[in-house]
């Protein structure tokens, strides 16, 4: 019996999120965005959150809605400014939101390091730029590097294509993006999947995220059936 918990209720899936948590949120644009879990987190009411995600919300839904509800203290992301990021833009300009901009590859690698037990790493990305100011640098074998620290989440909210009953995950196309890395980097990983399949139905050779990283699975198909 897997220790992964399976839910057909989004509110139950996010019930463990606490005020002040660092929440890793998957997705690149809308691909891989855990929209149902974010909506549940808004209903849940946890506040004073630090959100780590590639973007800072689009339009009025998902991450933008979480920001608009005033639940987020700080955003750590690579690309907050987009044509439809007006919710973030307004909060940031009014001083209501702290922002840490991180180069996209460093963002991914800092979470990978957290998940892999690496204390810090030297990255060539950002050397000599404003984003390296105040950070330790070192020349190794003639090349300059910046010291980057891990980003560890209390919680990760991600989306995958399928989970089996052991918690193994597969993704679909570029919706994979940050999911596998975030799943390793959080104390508790919560995944929404389009469908849960029986253990054994996923080819072990094709599993991308092994169930050891997966704490809660929300089965979107079960929700749809319940509504129907």
């Amino acid at each position, binding site marked *: 019996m897997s220790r992964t918990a399976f839910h057909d209720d989004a509110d139950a899936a996010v019930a463990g999120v606490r005020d002040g948590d660092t929440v890793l949120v998957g997705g*690149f644009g809308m691909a891989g965005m855990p929209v149902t879990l974010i909506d549940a987190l808004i209903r849940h009411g946890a506040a004073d959150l630090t959100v780590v995600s590639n973007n800072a919300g689009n339009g009025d839904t998902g991450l933008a809605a979480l920001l608009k509800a005033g639940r987020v203290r700080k955003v750590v992301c690579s690309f907050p400014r987009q044509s439809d990021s007006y919710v973030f833009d307004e909060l940031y300009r009014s001083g209501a939101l702290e922002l840490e901009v991180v180069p996209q590859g460093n963002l*991914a690698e800092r979470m990978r390091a957290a998940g892999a037990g690496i204390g810090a790493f030297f990255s060539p990305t950002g050397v000599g730029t404003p984003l390296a100011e105040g950070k330790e640098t070192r020349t190794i074998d003639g090349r300059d590097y910046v010291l980057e620290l891990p980003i560890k989440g209390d919680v990760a909210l991600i989306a995958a294509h399928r989970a089996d009953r052991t918690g193994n995950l597969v*993704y679909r196309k570029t919706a994979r993006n940050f999911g596998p890395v975030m799943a390793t980097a959080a104390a508790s990983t919560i995944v929404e999947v389009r469908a849960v399949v029986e253990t054994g139905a996923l080819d072990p050779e094709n599993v991308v995220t092994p169930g050891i990283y997966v704490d809660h699975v929300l089965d979107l198909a079960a929700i749809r059936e319940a509504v129907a």
Partner: protein
Amino acid sequence: MTTTSTIEHTDREPLSKHEIAAIIARDIPSGSYVNLGIGQPTLVADHLDADSGVVLHTENGMLGMGRAAEGDEIDPDLTNAGKVPVVETPGCSYFHHADSFAMMRGGHLDVCVLGAFQVSEHGDLANWHTGAPDAIPAVGGAMDLAIGAKDVLVMMTLFAKDGSSKLVPSCTYPLTGVGCVSRVYTDLALFEVGPDGVTVLETWSLTVDELAERLDVPLRRAKG
């Protein structure tokens, strides 16, 4: 008398953005793994021969990215780095974000084509932030791309809308990367930049001497 291999195409107008893209495509070796930055660099894909064997990388986790998707091909799970829906090509592969940037940072990509606000004569790049006090900083993958590929090519107009040159002695905008650019493709000229400064490889609509009068950086002709 020194010989030069710099080619001056004085009998024509400046290059259009599509013509710049075609020149870049001409210079990308067949079989290269290539990342095309968001915006104008994506035009380069339209000029790559189908049999060139060039494989496109998109930093959100794919090698073998195809053209923009149309109609029923549109799949929300399959987009490029600009979040535009695209299609697969035979032999494509998917991987997560940390692997995608490891591939870049680890020096496995051959070529990256980026836009720029400014490039310095020594190859410093500024393309992520104007430094305006009210601007919201957003870097995306620009800094990772700038230091990642073996060859970083810049595609830009040589002069900004206000008439100032974007090829400068040193960048006044916040830097994206230091000494990372190898070539600058513009509407008026193709430059090589680096530790030794600027070499003009090709011009369009004007001569190297005419170009030198309009720029604040020393220009050299390519050695014959």
